[in-house]
């Protein structure tokens, strides 16, 4: 330990230019790695091991708060100070690809024994592929499932969560019949875009159509999902409340204020920590029901990926770090450090993960995930989905008007994209024409 410390001091001194010669000739490489929030904090431990395996590489992990990450990445790109590699929410990949900031990875993957398409959940892998080219490597995964109170469901006459929408709805109605005042069957925070979007995906909506040129919100599949979603509020099965209106959702769940909650993997740990001990036997997780039963019960393909920046001076070493972080045993240790679910299917063989009955629902769900539209404007579009669904739920706006408004807004946002696509197509057409003339 002491020796390691001394070595680090000498290294620091070398960086400051205090010594030269033998050490300098050894070609030291410094990798700059940006990671967010808890991942940024915990990955430091794993990175030390990578440094031991690669004595000539120093990895400088910079921890970035999630709330500032998106701005910081784009600003860094504009300012020409991107790191060598970074963690990226996988819905951000299209944006960084659109500005040509990240490296296509197919040629790296072709030579890799560790990173392979078939080692990762297919829906998750797909989020990182744009125009048939891979731009990011899945690191950990995130999707939404149903957390529910077993005891309340049982009291309403159900042993498990039904698999089709109609039966699911019937179960909610049965729960609601037995519920007291200020108790509801399900909590769907009105300020989240995920629930209406996932229901739309389940009902077969592409969300955006014509290659991401227009919104598909008024079309039948999304309309059906939206009516189902808004109907849960209109019929009093879900409280008209956003995340900010509920001070402590865990307390309310324990109290029975709501019996179901669509949420993500981080809440497995939170439920175990925050629910009172006597409540621990009474909750469970289940994959989402679908309009036509289990097979249609898809959810979102979320999570974070690792990207290699085009500006990197050490792409080889950076790729080696990405490979290192993709190794099943490293992914397993990362799960223990953070609770993030591994993207590599092999890492799920871990006894603590395989034996975790709450994680099982996620494992099933991850076989049925679908990416949200892969356009750079997606983040902005989600804020419009929230606005409009709040108008429907709180303001009683009709489905027709709400979806027409949403399509109009989204089509205006996508106008630039259509123009760019048309121009590129035109340019290609022109060059094809010149070839013919020759």
């Amino acid at each position: 330990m002491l020796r390691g410390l001394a070595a680090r001091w000498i290294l620091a001194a070398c960086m400051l230019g205090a010594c030269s010669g033998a050490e300098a000739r050894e070609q030291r490489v410094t990798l700059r790695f940006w990671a967010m929030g808890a991942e940024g904090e915990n990955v430091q431990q794993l990175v030390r091991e990578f440094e031991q395996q690669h004595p000539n590489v120093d990895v400088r992990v910079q921890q970035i708060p999630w709330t500032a990450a998106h701005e910081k990445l784009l600003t860094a790109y504009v300012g020409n100070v991107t790191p060598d590699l970074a963690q990226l929410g996988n819905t951000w990949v299209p944006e960084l690809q659109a500005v040509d900031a990240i490296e296509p990875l197919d040629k790296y993957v072709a030579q890799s024994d560790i990173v392979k398409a078939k080692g990762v959940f297919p829906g998750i892998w797909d989020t990182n592929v744009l125009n048939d080219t891979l731009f990011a490597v899945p690191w950990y995964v995130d999707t939404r499932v149903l957390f529910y109170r077993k005891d309340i469901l049982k009291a309403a006459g159900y042993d498990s969560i039904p698999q089709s929408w109609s039966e699911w709805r019937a179960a909610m109605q049965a729960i609601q019949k037995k519920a007291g005042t200020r108790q509801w069957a399900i909590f769907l925070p009105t300020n989240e875009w995920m629930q209406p979007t996932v229901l739309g995906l389940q009902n077969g909506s592409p969300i955006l159509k014509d290659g991401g040129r227009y919104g598909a919100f008024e079309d039948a599949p999304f309309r059906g999902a939206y009516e189902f979603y808004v109907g849960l509020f209109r019929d009093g099965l879900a409280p008209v409340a956003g995340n900010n209106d509920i001070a402590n959702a865990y307390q309310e769940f324990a109290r029975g204020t709501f019996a179901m909650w669509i949420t993500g993997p981080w809440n497995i740990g939170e439920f175990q920590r925050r629910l009172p001990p006597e409540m621990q036997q009474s909750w469970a997780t289940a994959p989402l029901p679908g309009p036509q039963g289990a097979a249609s019960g898809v959810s979102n393909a979320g999570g974070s990926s690792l990207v290699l920046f085009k500006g990197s001076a050490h792409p080889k070493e950076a790729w080696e770090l990405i490979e290192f972080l993709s190794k099943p045993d490293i992914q397993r240790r990362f799960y223990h450090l953070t609770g993030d679910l591994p993207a590599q299917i092999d890492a799920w063989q871990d006894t603590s993960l395989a034996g975790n009955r709450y994680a099982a629902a996620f494992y099933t769900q991850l076989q049925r995930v679908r990416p949200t539209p892969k356009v750079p404007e997606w983040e902005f579009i989600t804020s419009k989905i929230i606005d409009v669904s709040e108008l429907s739920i709180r303001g009683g706006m009709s489905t027709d008007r709400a979806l027409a408004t949403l399509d109009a807004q989204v089509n205006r946002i996508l106008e630039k994209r259509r123009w760019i696509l048309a121009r590129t197509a035109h340019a290609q057409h022109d060059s094809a024409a010149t070839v013919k003339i020759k």
Partner: protein
Amino acid sequence: VSEVRAQIAAKTPEWRAGRAGWLFIAPAITLIAVFFFLPVGASLLLSITDFDLYAVANPSNVRLVGTRNYTELLQNPTFWLALKNTFYFALIGGPLTVATSLGAALLVNAKAVRFKTFFRTVYFLPFVTTLVAVAIVWRYLYHPQYGFLNYALGAVGIHPIDWLGDPRWAMPAIILLAVWKNFGYNMLIFIAGLQSVPEDLYEAAALDGAGAVRQFWHVTLPNLAPTFFFVGVVTMIGYFQLFAEPYVMTTGGPLGATTSLVLFMYEEGFRWWRLGVAASIAFLLFLIILVWTAIQLRLERRLAA
């Protein structure tokens, strides 16, 4: 020979003085031109384009859109909400800050007070501390369960308030922080103003039988008028540009209750990277501040007359 004579004739003393004058102000003018007029002109130009993420990738993706950014802004409810919040903050927070600083200046400057320098330093401290550090401490003070503020209110029987989580209370909480943070600077200016009021005016007023209150209204305030207007204009200009407080404390929430114009501009510009739209917000804000300052200056002239 005639050429030389003409050159000498051209270099008259006035010409030389003029040239010297220009040379003296040249550095300042260059700086202002490069760092003020140029960026302002550039951002005006930016505001009539659709500069966005695609343009960052490739400059040929920029299009001129005329006034479209402006017309779309005027139809955007978030813009109006941000405008309302900004006025709420400036119109309540501005006068409150000025009043607090005047009060503090009067207290610190009072003859009966001891340790004047100590109090002056203490009141000035918030102004020179970093806002981010201060905001973290204030978030603890505002915490609905463990915060000192609710604890103190609880002691007098007031139910706990969710300061930063309740849309009705978030802006008052931000105003309170801003007043506390900024009154020290204005206080120093007021103290300077107070000290320049001639002592004999107070003596004369006292001889005529004026008490402390009448002395304040008829001697202190009229003599402070120029200071007052300076402080008022500077404070309001600063407050219309509210950004750091909500950015650190609430990120514009809850339900957009603390989204200010500058925060909205920041989000459009650096979150969604729609720089054209962001530039047009900046220009609208510039116009608002210009009009407001003109009104204040006119008021000053009328009151001074």
